[in-house]
């Protein structure tokens, strides 16, 4: 028997592990061929690794022999019974732990191999582009998706500096992102990077650069994950275009139809019979309803896409409610038609909140219209309650109420239930969904109290923002746009000097009238559509987008001349003086906090 360790690879280790002599091992190995059929294939005496199973067989054999079995009997037993099932209970402590270690070791090795394989599989098959960079911006990883997207093979990219790979993309933007990521050590996201798909078609990438720590702390490896967002951008654009096209394409013919019908009805084109008029009137109502549905659809899609912008101003809610419920309002006519009472219950004086006046009117119109539709007799009442930090509006009716099972559907789109057949405007099924969206855009809440057969109340709240909050809100919005478009921005604040003492001396009402006059004059002096003037109780904030300090100062001077003229005409007291301040971005401040602090110091 040859005892050459080279010929039986690992045999010394194997014999050590199972704790038998090498000689004994070789003797057994001959028998092993019977037990583990695989060995025959290679010829046991030649090159062959001892597998974990081999070692376990050896271990078990040793144990059996020690127990008094002959070699032949032990071989037969293993052959018949196998090793795994009975091995554990039969094994001695020592052999058990040895075999266990061996098994564990090989399991870990196998798992590592598997994990590595899996990782490579994942990296190569993810649809995202994945590029790895070392601290010197040399490419370390380049997956299949990167190959496909840029039309550059792995071999042509790996181990080269990123900027010599000739990727057809906006490399300045990418490099800036890489720099930022290295500087901050945080994942950096860049959207809308222009690139050429396969070097041909223009597209957009969204990439995220992720820092990966290596041994040297301040020198980061980077991973660039990228996704081709061209299709998504196209879809978004298509949706936007679709919405405006729908509005155009539907409204234009609708205008023509409406005009035609209404002119015939008005008798412009000659006399009509009573029956004809009746039919035309019904047609006109349906046309108007269609127009409302188009408007509502546009509104709800804008609200859902968060594209609707509120024009926040200091609004007197009391005044709005009084106008809507005034004796000359269309709602009063409808109430009279239906034999209902429409009334308002509001506190005396002004109740002001920052809100979009038109949207607030839209909410009330929807809620009151809804209440009147579902009320056959009794009343519809609008109640306004002023609280410390919010206002609460109730629109209550004495109608049929809403059943428990219908309640969850109330604010859903196109959910009409308990339809009415009587005369009057038909709904669009979107009014309450829009109202809810509008209330929530004002950071308020809306809810329902209802009792079947007794009536329903819709209640909504609008929080009262402080002067600082509302100014900050406006400045933040304008600043975001300015940064996006790399424009300048100027903000001016006009304040009444010694406001509190003036109020005491002349009375709140007089000062308020003065403020309104100032607001009116300033609003009239604004030159551009994007310019905004917002009034708070004691000051007026003017926002001038794309205006540098110099231009802003001359605009402010012009405004001052205008309001001085207006004041002398109105005969306001000389005591009312106005202080003004202008802060410009980026010269005076970079953030909304900085700008606000300088403005209100």
């Amino acid at each position, binding site marked *: 028997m040859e005892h050459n360790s080279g010929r039986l690879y690992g045999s010394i280790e194997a014999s050590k592990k199972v704790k038998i002599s090498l000689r004994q091992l070789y003797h057994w190995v001959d028998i092993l061929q019977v037990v583990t059929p695989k060995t025959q294939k290679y010829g046991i005496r030649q090159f062959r690794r001892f597998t974990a199973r081999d070692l376990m067989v050896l271990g078990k054999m040793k144990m059996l022999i020690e127990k008094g079995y002959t070699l032949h009997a032990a071989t037969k037993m293993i052959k018949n019974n196998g090793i795994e099932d009975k091995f554990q209970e039969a094994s001695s402590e020592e052999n058990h732990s040895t075999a266990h270690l061996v098994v564990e070791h090989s399991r870990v090795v196998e798992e590592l191999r598997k994990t590595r394989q899996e990782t490579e599989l994942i990296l190569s098959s993810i649809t995202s582009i994945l590029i790895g960079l070392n601290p010197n911006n040399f490419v370390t990883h380049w997956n299949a998706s990167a190959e496909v997207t840029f039309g550059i093979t792995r071999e042509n990219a790996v181990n080269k500096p990123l900027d010599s790979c000739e990727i057809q993309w906006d490399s300045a933007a990418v490099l800036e992102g890489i720099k930022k990521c290295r500087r901050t050590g945080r994942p950096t996201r860049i959207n809308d990077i222009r690139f050429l798909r396969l070097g041909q078609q223009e597209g957009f990438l969204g990439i995220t650069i992720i820092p990966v720590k290596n041994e040297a702390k301040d020198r980061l490896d980077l991973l660039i994950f990228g996704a081709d967002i061209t299709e998504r951008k196209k879809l978004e654009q298509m949706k936007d275009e679709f919405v405006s096209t729908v509005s155009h394409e539907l409204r234009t013919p609708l*205008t023509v139809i409406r005009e035609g019908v209404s002119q015939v009805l008005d008798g412009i084109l000659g006399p009509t019979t009573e029956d004809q008029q009746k039919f035309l009137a019904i047609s006109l109502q349906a046309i108007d309803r269609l127009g409302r549905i188009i408007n509502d659809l546009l509104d709800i899609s804008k609200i859902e896409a968060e594209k609707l912008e509120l024009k926040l101003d200091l609004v007197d809610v009391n005044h709005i409610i009084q106008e809507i419920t005034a004796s000359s309002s269309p709602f009063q006519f409808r109430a009279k038609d239906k034999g209902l009472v429409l009334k308002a219950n509001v506190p005396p004086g002004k109740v002001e909140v920052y809100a979009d006046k038109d949207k607030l009117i839209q909410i009330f119109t929807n809620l009151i219209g809804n209440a009147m539709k579902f009320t056959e007799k009794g009343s519809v009442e609008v109640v306004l309650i002023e609280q410390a930090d919010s206002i609460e509006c109730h629109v209550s009716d004495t109608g049929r109420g809403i059943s428990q099972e219908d309640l969850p559907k109330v604010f859903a789109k196109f959910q009409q239930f308990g339809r009415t057949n009587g005369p009057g405007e038909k709904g669009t099924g979107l009014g309450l969904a829009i109202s809810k969206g509008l209330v929530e855009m004002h950071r308020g809440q809306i809810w329902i109290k209802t009792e079947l057969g007794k009536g329903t109340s819709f209640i909504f709240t609008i929080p009262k923002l402080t002067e600082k909050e509302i100014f900050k809100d406006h400045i933040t919005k304008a600043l975001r746009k300015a940064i996006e478009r790399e424009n300048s921005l100027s903000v001016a604040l006009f304040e009444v000097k010694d406001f509190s003492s003036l109020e005491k001396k002349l009375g709140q009402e007089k000062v308020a009238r003065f403020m309104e006059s100032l607001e009116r004059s300033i609003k009239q002096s604004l030159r551009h559509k994007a310019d905004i003037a917002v009034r708070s109780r004691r000051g007026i904030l003017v926002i001038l987008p794309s205006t540098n300090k110099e231009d802003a100062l001359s605009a402010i001077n012009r405004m001052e001349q205008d309001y001085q003229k207006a004041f002398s005409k109105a005969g306001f007291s000389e005591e009312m003086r106005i202080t003004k301040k202008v802060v410009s971005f980026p010269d005076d401040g970079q953030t909304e906090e900085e700008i606000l602090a300088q403005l209100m110091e």
Partner: protein
Amino acid sequence: MSKKKILFVDDEPETVVMISSRLRANDYEVLAATSGPESIHLAREFKPDLILLDIIMPAMEGYDVLLKLKAEDDLSQIPVIVLTAAARKNLEGMCVKAGAKAVVFKPFNPAELLALIKKAFDPNSKWRRPESICE
């Protein structure tokens, strides 16, 4: 007093028919053009008192018509009200800058358009801020 002359420019014949009829019913004399070049020609020939101009038209965009009108000495004084169904954001500002009195978004309420026309003929009316009406 003779009737006021209005030049109505819109590339859609149906709209022209309907709005012209409404304007005539309100005692205005109406000339209609359905293209840019035609509108310039009619403006020179008939010297209307007011022009209602649709902003999106093939061949010559209404905006170019507006610029051309404002560039001609004889025509620049004629008040122009822009009608549009376009939802382009800066359109209103552009048109007012180019000299339009007002921008009206389609579909408009005829009563409001008539009120605006009346205002355009009132020498005392003020047009400080761009006015826009839509339903």
